[in-house]
C-alpha cells in the first residue's frame, strides 16, 4: 500500500463511529471480548493478555449528531462525555463488553457512574492511578489496583491472565511504543513528508486495531514516507499541548498546518506514548507496569507533579528535542485539567522565551476561521521576525 492508501484506510477507521473493524474482530471468534476505554491511560497489556481488544473511545468527532448525550450535560461541560454517551445510547457500542474510565478528571469520573446506571449489565471500572510516586506507597496501591483489574477481566473473559501472557503482551506493546516514537521522530525530521494529518490518523488507528496489525501499518507507512520527496514549505515548527482528551476535529489539525505551522510534537492520544521507555519483560509484570508508570511516564495535566521545580520541564525538554519554535496550547473548552495547568506552563514558556499562543476548541467546532487566523498570525510572526 502507498502512504495515501494507508492513510485512507486509517481515515475510514477514524470516521467509522460504528467500529466495524472491532466488531469484525470480535465476530471472528466467539471467545473474544472487547473493552472500551477513554483517554488518557489504561494498561492495555492486561486486556491483550486476556485475548481482549482494547478499544479507544475518543468521543464522536464532528460528524456524530449528538441528541441523547446532550440531554445529560449542561452547556458548560466539555463535549467528549456527551458524544460518548451518544455512542452508547445509539447502540454503537453494543458489542463492547466493558468500559474503563481512567482517572483524569471529574467529568470522566462521574461518567463512570453514569455508565453503570445506564448499562447495568456491562463491566464498568473506574481505573484509578496513583498520584504518589513512591514504590511502597503509590506503587503498592497501584499494583493492587492492577491486580483488581486483572481479576475483573479474568472473570469477564473466563480466561486466566498468566504472568507469561502479560510478559508477552508487554513485549508487543514495547514494539508498538518504539514504532510510535520512531514515527514522531520521523515527523520532526521531515514534517513535509510526514504530515500531522497522517500522524494523527495513524495514532487513531491504534485505538481501534489489534496492536499487531497496528504495528505492521506503522512499519509500512514509515518505510514509504521516508522515501517521499514532498516540497518543503516555509512553515514554522510548533508543538501542540493540552489536547490529551477530547480531540479536535481533523479539520483543525489541517487548518493549523495550512496556516503555516508544522506540528512537530503533540499530546494527542498520549496512551500510545504514555510509557516512555521499554517496560522490562522479566520479573513481576504488574510491578513492571507500575514502576514504568511511576517513574517513566509522560507528563500530562491529569497527573500530579510532586515537585514544584519539575512543573513544565517535560514540555520544555520536548521543545528542545524537537527544535520547536513555538508552542500552541490548544485545549477543549471547559477542560479543567488542561485549562488549570495552562497558566503554569505558559509561565515556564515565558521564562524561557518560547513563543506560545492558546486557544480552545470543541470536537465539533465548525468554524475554523478564528483558529486559522490565530495560528496564522503566530506563524506569520515567527516567520517574519524570528
Amino acid at each position, binding site marked *: 500500500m502507498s502512504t495515501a492508501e494507508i492513510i485512507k484506510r486509517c481515515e475510514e477507521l477514524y470516521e467509522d463511529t460504528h467500529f466495524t473493524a472491532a466488531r469484525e474482530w470480535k465476530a471472528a471468534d466467539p471467545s473474544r471480548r472487547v473493552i472500551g476505554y477513554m483517554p488518557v491511560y489504561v494498561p492495555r497489556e492486561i486486556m491483550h493478555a486476556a485475548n481482549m481488544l482494547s478499544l479507544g473511545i475518543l468521543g464522536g468527532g464532528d460528524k456524530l449528531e449528538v441528541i441523547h448525550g446532550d440531554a445529560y450535560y*449542561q452547556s*458548560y461541560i466539555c463535549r467528549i462525555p456527551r458524544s460518548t454517551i451518544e455512542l452508547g445510547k445509539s447502540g454503537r457500542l453494543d458489542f463492547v463488553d466493558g468500559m474503563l474510565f481512567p482517572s483524569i478528571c*471529574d467529568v470522566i469520573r462521574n461518567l463512570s*457512574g453514569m455508565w453503570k446506571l445506564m448499562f447495568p449489565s456491562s463491566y464498568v471500572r473506574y481505573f484509578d492511578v496513583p*498520584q*504518589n510516586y513512591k514504590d511502597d506507597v503509590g506503587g503498592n496501591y497501584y499494583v493492587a489496583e492492577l491486580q483488581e483489574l486483572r481479576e475483573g477481566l479474568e472473570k469477564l473473559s473466563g480466561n486466566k491472565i498468566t504472568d507469561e501472557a502479560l510478559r508477552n503482551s508487554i513485549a508487543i506493546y514495547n514494539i508498538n511504543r518504539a514504532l510510535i516514537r520512531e514515527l514522531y521522530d520521523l515527523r520532526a525530521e521531515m514534517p513535509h513528508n510526514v504530515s500531522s494529518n497522517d500522524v494523527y490518523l495513524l495514532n487513531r488507528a491504534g485505538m481501534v486495531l489489534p496492536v499487531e496489525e497496528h504495528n505492521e501499518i506503522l512499519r509500512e507507512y514509515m518505510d514509504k514516507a521516508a522515501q517521499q520527496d514532498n516540497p518543503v514549505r516555509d512553515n514554522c515548527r510548533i508543538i501542540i499541548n493540552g489536547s490529551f482528551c477530547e480531540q479536535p476535529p481533523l479539520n483543525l489539525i489541517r487548518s493549523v498546518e495550512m496556516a503555516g505551522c508544522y506540528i512537530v510534537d503533540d499530546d494527542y492520544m498520549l496512551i500510545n506514548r504514555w510509557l516512555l521507555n521499554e517496560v522490562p519483560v522479566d520479573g513481576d509484570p504488574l510491578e513492571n507496569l507500575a514502576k514504568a508508570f511511576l517513574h517513566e511516564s509522560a507528563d500530562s495535566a491529569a497527573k500530579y507533579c510532586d515537585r*514544584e521545580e519539575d512543573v513544565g520541564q517535560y514540555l520544555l525538554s520536548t521543545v528542545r528535542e524537537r527544535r520547536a519554535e513555538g508552542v500552541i496550547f490548544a485545549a477543549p473548552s471547559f477542560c*479543567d485539567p488542561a*485549562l488549570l495547568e495552562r497558566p503554569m506552563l505558559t509561565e515556564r514558556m515565558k521564562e524561557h522565551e518560547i513563543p506560545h499562543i492558546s486557544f*480552545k476548541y470543541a470536537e465539533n467546532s465548525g468554524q475554523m476561521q478564528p483558529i486559522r487566523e490565530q495560528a496564522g498570525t503566530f506563524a506569520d510572526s515567527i516567520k517574519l521576525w524570528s
Partner: protein
Amino acid sequence: MSTKTATPTAVESQKDSSMLMQKRMINSNYDALTSAPETGRKVCSTFVPGNLNELIQCFGMINNLPETNAIQNAMRQQSGGMIQTAERQGHSEDVCTYVKADIGMMSKGNIAPNGKPMPNPDMLLLSYTGCFTFMKWFELLRQEYKCPTVMLQVPYQGDGEITQNMRDFVVKQLKEEVIPTMEQVSGVKFDIDRLRENMRRSAQAEDDLVWVLESAKNKPSPIDAYFGAIYYLGPMFTAFRGTQEAVDYYKVLRKEIEERIAKSQGPITPEGEIQKERYRLVVEGPPNWTNFREFWKMFYEEGAVVVASTYTKVGGVYDQGFRHDADNPLESLADYCLGCYTNRNLPKRVELLEQYVNEYEADGLLINSIKSCNSFSAGQLMMMQEIEKRTGAPGAFVETDLVDPRYFSAANVKNRLESYFQMIEQRRQGRMIATAS
C-alpha cells in the same frame, strides 16, 4: 466547595444564641490566622471535603480553608473583581471560580475577611477528596508560596465502596507523608492520644449535628436544610470539628431547634419565620454565594423549605452513620476522607437523594447546578432523571455559579423556580381532583 460561615447577611432580627456563637467562632479563627505572625502558630491550608482538622489540631496548627475565604469574599461582593484579576493573569474563564477567587485574593494583597493581612501558609495539605481541581489548585498555590506541600491522594469510590486497598493507601500516606510533614513544619511530635481526644469530641458534635439535620423530617420543618443549614455547618466543616467549642455549639443549637419543634415553628429566614410551609424540597448542589439572600428569598417567599440537601454533606456524610472513631484513629480518618459526598460514585449519590426524597417526604428535587464545579455538576441531569423515575417526585434544574456574580441571572432562575412551584401546586390539585372523583 465548602460552607458559608460568617454571617454578614444573616438573621439580624432573630439573634439566636447559636447564631451569635457560630459567628464568634468563625471570627475567632480568622483572628487566629491573621495574628499568626505574632503568636508564631503555623498555618495549614487545606480543603473542606476531607479536611483533617483533628490531626491539624494535634500539631497546634491553624486551619485555613481557601474555599471559605472565597465564599466570604463572595458574600461581601468582592469575588467578582478577584475572579477577573485571575482571568487577567491568564486563568481560563471555564474553570472553577473558587480557584480564581483565591488567586485573585492573593494578587490583591491577601486580605482576610477580617480586614487584616492573611499570613502565608506554612504548609499545603492537599487532601484530594472528590475533585481534581483541588490538585491543580494547590499546585498553583505551591508555585506562589513555595512551602511544603503534601499530597494525600484519596481514591475515588468508583464501585461505590471503600476497599481495604484504598484505606491502606490513605493510612499509609497519613503515616509516611502527612504526619511527618506536619511534625517537621510545626516542630511538634505526633501524639496519637491527642488525636483520639479530638476525635472523641468530633463524634459528640456529629451526633447533635445529625439530629439537627434530621429535625427537618418534622412537619413543618423547623429548619431550612440548605440555606439555613449553611450556618449550622460552619463550625463542623471548618476549623472547629474536634474542639470543645463545637461540642457546645451543637448542644445549644439542638436546644433551640427542640424548642422550635415544640412550638411547631418553621425555619427562620432573613425576613423572619416562614409562616406556611408550602413546598418541601430536596436540593442537590452547592448554593450560589454572590446572591445568596436573593436566591433564598425566591424560596421562602413562596413558602418553599428545603428539608434535605447534599451540599450539607460535602464535609462528611454523618447522617449515614459515619462517626470519627477514636479507637481506630487513622483508619477512621481515612474512612472520613473516602466517604465525603463527592467521593461517592454517582449511583450512590442517586441513592442518597432518593432516600432523602422519600424519608423527608419531599415534593420534589431541585438541582442547583454550578458552572464551576464539574465534580458536582457532571451527571446531575441524569441524577434528576433517576430520582424522578424512582420516586415520582418532579425535578427542576437551575444553573448558577458559586462566587462568580456574572453567572447569576436572577430573572432566569426565578422564572424556572416559579414555573416549578406552580407545577407542583398544579400537580397537587390534579391529584386532589383525581382522588375526589
